């Protein structure tokens, strides 16, 4: 698989037309099928930085940041507080259209790649990713150390759905790179966007995008889909199943 990819990349490299630095990337699988016994997988992203005549000669080393963004969804983060001696959800924040899966990978620590200013603009690092919140009618992203924002990132990270790794991208040659994209067992289904941003000497010099899709197959997914889309039929089927089981039991265990 990997060898085939490298071969494909080389063909691409040889045949492409020159136009400043160009990023050429490919993921090992554009369609991941999650079966009932799926227990996590790792996709591989391969790519190459292509130079041409207009590339400044002093550009020897490149830095890369890979961002993987899963399907977006609205989420609510709630905080418990002690009220009358018991723990109750008191305050909440709504996060609007935030990624259900988010991974940021780089070849070295984010703060060494570029300045804080550019990192913020290019959303480099979990602290700089924009997570829109609705706070009583206002729409805003808040400071990185906001209690709800950091709790949100912490809980998503615990489930393996948000991650950042500043050593995940490895350069095989000065221009050829690869990184693994771990997908845990509970990955949300949908389309995943991958953004690859190229930096040189702290400056942002270009980006490219690719995507892959995660689909679930099998009986479980059929059950989940019908529960959401045909609630009435699903309910009737479950009720009928209950009656059947009860009836069967009364036959099997009939005493007289």
């Amino acid at each position: 698989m990997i060898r085939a990819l490298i071969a494909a990349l080389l063909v691409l490299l040889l045949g492409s037309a020159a136009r400043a630095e160009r990023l050429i990337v490919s993921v090992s699988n554009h369609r991941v099928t999650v079966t009932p016994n799926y227990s996590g997988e790792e996709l591989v992203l391969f790519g190459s930085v292509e130079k041409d005549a207009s590339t400044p000669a002093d550009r020897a080393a490149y830095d890369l940041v890979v961002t993987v963004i899963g399907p977006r969804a609205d989420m609510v983060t709630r905080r418990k507080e002690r009220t009358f001696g018991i723990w109750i959800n008191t305050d909440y924040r709504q996060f609007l259209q935030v990624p259900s899966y988010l991974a940021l990978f780089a070849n070295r620590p984010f703060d060494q790649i570029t300045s804080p200013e550019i990192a913020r603009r290019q959303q480099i690092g979990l602290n700089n990713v924009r997570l829109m919140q609705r706070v009583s009618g206002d729409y805003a992203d808040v400071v990185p150390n906001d209690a709800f924002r950091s709790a949100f990132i912490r809980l998503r990270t615990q489930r393996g759905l948000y991650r950042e790794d500043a050593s995940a991208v490895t350069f095989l040659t000065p221009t050829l790179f690869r990184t693994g994209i771990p997908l845990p067992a509970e990955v949300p289904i949908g389309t995943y966007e991958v953004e690859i941003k190229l930096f040189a000497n702290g400056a942002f010099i270009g980006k490219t995008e690719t995507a892959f899709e995660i689909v679930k197959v099998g009986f479980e997914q059929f059950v989940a889909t019908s529960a959401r889309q045909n609630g009435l039929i699903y309910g009737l089927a479950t009720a009928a199943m209950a009656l059947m089981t009860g009836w069967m039991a009364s036959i099997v265990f009939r005493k007289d």
Partner: protein
Amino acid sequence: MQLYLPIADLPVNVFLVLAMGAAVGFVSGMFGIGGGFLMTPLLIFIGITPAVAVASVASHIAASSFSGAISYWRRRAIDPALATVLLCGGVTGTALGVWTFTQLRALGQLDLMIALSYVVLLTTVGSLMFSEGLRALMRTRRGTVPPRRTHNWIHGLPLKMRFKRSKIYLSVIPVVIVGVVIGFIGAIMGIGGGFILVPIMIYLLRVPTSTVIGTSMILTLVTMLVATMLHAVTNHLVDAVLALILMVGGVTGAQFGARAGQRIRGEQLRLLLGLLILSVGIRFAVELVIRPEDLFTIRELGVNG
């Protein structure tokens, strides 16, 4: 063997869930109850969200009460008229319960309300049952006959109706009210309510013991079927895979439980049941008071529900 539960969104060990179903089934067969008040907490304990647990257990209780109801029907131990009046209230109560459930879930207070209801209901019923069982046990030791009360204020209410098979003449008002209450708490807490309904019917409505369990099973069966339907249509929280495993374990365990129950005396059985109910209630109370491991929780509202 791991199996992925589609609605609970969680991989579980099939044999663990099967064993839980069988254990609860055993207890429910022994005491002649649905066992929802044990099943729902156990599911919450293994990491299933309270909302999914409550909705899925409803269908599990429907299955076990249906197999019970069939055998009581054969023995003519069900009062159809009384069951019909109870159901008028029961179905209304269930619908109200599912509606309240949805509202509480939107407010983010559902888990708290489920826990609070368990604490209040189970500690009250448990301690009443325990003390009553203790008194009955003392009486049999001393050999005295319990004082038999004949009528109470409930029998003075209007709209009286004759329930032939139970041989009682009773106002429909308290019967309907009992139905509403049981249906309502059943839908919110994921319990059949048999363990509250049977004592109420015996002590308050004076339904004879010959028809009380069979009739209460009909109410449990229908309210739980309605609850399953409504939870599936409104909240999409019924996990059919989970429910099926529970049912299979539950109905099997119940058969053995019923046999074990016949060897224990009635007073001791009530004492044990009271203790069991009380301890589940206390467990919920402790959970509410101690500081949770994480003060924050996330709920996804979007694409993946």
